[in-house]
């Protein structure tokens, strides 16, 4: 499937928007860590959040993940309060941080892929949990570091399949509809044959 937006562009956008959110809302200056990709994230502890992205050209997910202690620290900076353990306020603050990071990522992404919709964040807290995406989704993982703490931003973005299934003929149909449908199929088959010839 074709790449809509380069990995470098995704990483650049995430660096810019995350840096802005963390410095403006949390007065937190961070250092970007080494970026890597993964197919499936292994076992996690702590807090993880997800926001869905859906546009006419792409679909995907933005995710934030950190340990429980870091989530408490981030919420404390956000709300100017102290949180000894993860509670509803910490999860809410983490959800809002996710909303800001992924929301601003989405706005920047729209310059490349057109209008994109955003879901409401989901935040999960637990120990030794796994997360899975259906299919062979590749995630770009972008860490942010400060002191001994780390926040991981994960982005998974896929081009929508442009080879959409043909619209089925609905009964009753006319002879002309049948002719048109077959004509399109023959043309598609010819193009496919051409591609196969070129590739081989």
């Amino acid at each position, binding site marked *: 499937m074709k790449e809509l937006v380069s990995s470098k562009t995704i990483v650049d956008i995430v660096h810019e928007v995350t840096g802005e959110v963390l410095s403006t809302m949390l007065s937190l200056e961070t250092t970007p860590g080494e970026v890597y990709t993964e197919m499936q994230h292994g076992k996690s502890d702590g807090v993880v959040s997800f926001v869905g992205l859906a546009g006419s050209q792409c679909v995907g997910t933005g995710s934030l993940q950190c340990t429980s202690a870091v989530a408490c620290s981030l919420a404390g900076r956000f709300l100017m309060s102290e949180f000894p353990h993860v509670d509803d306020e910490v999860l809410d603050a983490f959800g809002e941080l996710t909303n800001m990071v992924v929301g*601003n990522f989405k706005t920047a992404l729209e310059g490349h892929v057109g209008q994109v919709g955003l879901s409401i964040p989901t935040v999960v807290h637990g120990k030794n949990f796994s997360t899975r995406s259906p299919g062979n989704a590749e995630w770009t993982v972008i860490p942010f570091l400060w002191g001994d703490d780390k926040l991981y931003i994960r982005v998974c973005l896929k081009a929508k399949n442009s080879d959409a299934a043909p619209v089925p003929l609905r009964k009753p149909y006319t002879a002309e509809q049948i002719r048109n449908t077959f004509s399109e199929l023959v043309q598609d088959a010819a193009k496919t044959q051409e591609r196969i010839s070129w590739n081989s």
Partner: protein
Amino acid sequence: MPFDLLIVDDSTAIRKILQRVLHTAEIPLRNVYEAGDGIEALAVLRANEVSLVLSDINMPNMDGLQLLTQIRANEAWKKVPVIMITTEGSQVKVLEAAQLGANGYVRKPFTPEQIKTTLAGLA
């Protein structure tokens, strides 16, 4: 003259932050009400004389643009200033909010000064 203000956001964290900013701003506030979505906001508007609304856009049940539409369609509230405070920064949404009658737009993340400056022009 002190007036009543309504904050509409599904995040309690953002409502708290805005409360803190408002209390440090030199704005003559009497009551600051909170609502978690557009439906709750309409209930607050029906029960109180609110003079200014700060609203998020992306919320469950009824979003900020639907709320804005309802406010502008109501004879009693149509002149109440509404400021959108949201991560939704796309030109399409900004234009849509302006066309629906929003009086201002603040993008998250925001600084306290941005909120105070925006409100200073309306209070």
